[in-house]
């Protein structure tokens, strides 16, 4: 189970960002790889690190900012300790995903893309987790769950130790 501790924004973080970017500099088109690594190590991509990545990879800040903001995975602020992702695509819709999406938001008291006040859970939507015969599907901290109704959702979220 991956946890995502919020890292302090300090000079140490910027140094780590620089070393991550430098480690991939020789690869072909490494920007996504670098951004993934930064987010894995530090939990998110602080806007102040964009310039660091840009200078290491010899790109413009606009290019790095453009990529960091285009993709849904990259976050500019830390996420909650647990990451709950609910599938909203057609196959899951056919077995109750709309109700599950409503339930998840109501139970956690947050909308998609938001984090609870105690920073325990960030809730996101996704369009397909590839578990389309066993929907509705939910992914919690990278682990996939199938046939999730309201009760099972509550039990799974509870189990993650909110």
């Amino acid at each position: 189970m991956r946890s995502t501790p919020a890292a302090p924004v300090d000079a140490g973080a910027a140094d780590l960002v620089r070393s991550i970017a430098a480690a991939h500099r020789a690869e072909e088109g490494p920007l996504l790889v670098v951004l993934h690594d930064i987010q894995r190590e530090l939990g998110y991509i602080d806007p102040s690190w964009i310039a660091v990545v840009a200078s290491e990879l010899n790109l413009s800040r606009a290019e790095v900012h453009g990529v960091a903001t285009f993709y849904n995975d990259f976050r500019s602020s830390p996420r909650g300790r647990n990451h709950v992702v609910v599938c909203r695509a057609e196959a899951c819709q056919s077995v109750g995903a709309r109700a599950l999406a409503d339930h998840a938001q109501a139970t956690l008291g947050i909308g998609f893309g938001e984090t609870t006040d105690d920073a325990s859970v960030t809730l996101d939507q996704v369009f397909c987790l590839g578990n389309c015969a066993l929907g509705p599907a939910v992914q919690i901290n990278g682990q996939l769950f199938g046939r999730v109704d309201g009760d099972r959702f509550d039990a799974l979220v509870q189990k993650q130790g909110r």
Partner: protein
Amino acid sequence: MTSSSVTTVYVPRDSAAKSVGADEVADLIATAARTADGDVRVVRNGSRGMLWLEPVVEVTTDAGRVAYGPVNPSDVRGLLDAGLFDAAEHRLRLGLVDDIAWLKNQQRLTFARVGVTDPLSLDDYQQHGGGAGLRRALAMTPEQVVDEVIESGLRGRGGAGFPAGIKWKTVLGATSDRKYVCCNADEGDSGTFADRMLMEGDPFTLIEGMIITSYAVGAATGYIYVRSEYPDAVATLNSAIEILYAHGWLGERVLNTGHSFDLSVRVGAGAYICGEETSMLESLEGKRGMVRAKPPIPALQGLFGQPTVVNNVLTLGSVPAVMAESGATYASYGFDRSLGTQVFQLAGNIARGGIVETGFGITLDELVNGYGGGTRSGRPVRAVQVGGPLGAYIPASQLELRAGYESMAAAEAMIGHGGIVVFDDTVDMAQQARFAMEFCAEESCGKCTPCRIGSVRGVEVIDRIIAGEDRESNLVLLDDLCNLMTEGSLCAMGGLTPMPVRSAVRNFAADFSREPGDGSSGTADNENAVASSSRDPADFATSPRRPELDTEVTT
């Protein structure tokens, strides 16, 4: 103890199986195996694709592998007490795997080893025919390999259906000292999971296909672009690549020939549009996933402007089967101009969901009501969406359609990546049409106006239709908008979003003329619904639908 007395218990490591408790089941069985009389080992295989029976547990016997399922963690104690390691009788016992009609009636070529082998055992892989295609290809000239793939009739399984061999011929003929093979594993279509299951269940097959491709076109570098929603597939592929480097299948001098090929995995970042090939190439280059205008085609100017093969997981994963026998053998499956097999994925509200690999030409009815057994809810099938979020909604009355590229296109539908999502009679098709536009608005790369703006306007106009505002003229407006998006969009995202919308309007008109606020869907007035399970379930007597299949699996 001799090796023949070793009992092997298989519990899938596929993430769908794990999503309903396979890890817990495997842990419990492994604990018991350590203290069992005799030699018992637990192997984590891929999934057989009988997903409604997961977690499926298999035990080796002299007669073959015996299956049990669905085995919930709470069933394991009783199963062990009954004599699981001796393949004893139990209410969950499904009998010999090879006798299960649901599997036996399929024609598994691409998925031949998925669920059979340990996905990361190269020995297992080769004992089950893996590597034969590569060895045969390496003994031929690149031109001969390309000709063989052309002869096989293999077409792009991502959905576009372009002949793979023709694409390869273009790349082979292009002059450049740098060429690439890129595997599109950005399987974002709802209702599709075959790429994931092949990558998790038999990664060597995909990689072997890519090595053959690289040899055929003269490419030295390859990438597999996997969506980030598939962390298990990424991990399995990375392990498989490491193993193949260690055994000389990848890197310098592949299997001691003059050919060299380096391969690595690149992970996407949550953008559906990166399943479009030019957008995927931009993403691989480390850029925003914005669609490129064609021409130039990627075969001539692809990754970093170099000649590039871009093929889907199932296309590349079918290449070893094509090369192991011959192109002509592969082409003997299928019908019309849709040759070979398709890996269909039965999804959504379906009783027996999973993987059905069989020759093209099977009817949707055979898939949905035959293999699928109708809906999971037990209510009548009302609509099936074939080919992902950009595919048409087909009414239950038209399930006699044969699955193939041209046959589906003639019915204003598409086969796409082979995903079939079933809806029962509680579905509101006006909401599904609205969702198609909403999805396009959410996932559009934003490069072209018809897609970026058209999808937003599409949501608005469908909302007005649902609200009962000036319906007649708004339906005309919607049709006009769909025309514009179809004709004016840069890629299939905007170009095909009208397909589900128009098919919903065409086939389920009643849902667009309901009184506003009437929450009911087209149940009673629906002329298209037919009873589910119209086929005799006894056809699949060895895999009966049990009551517990519908119950919650708790982990």
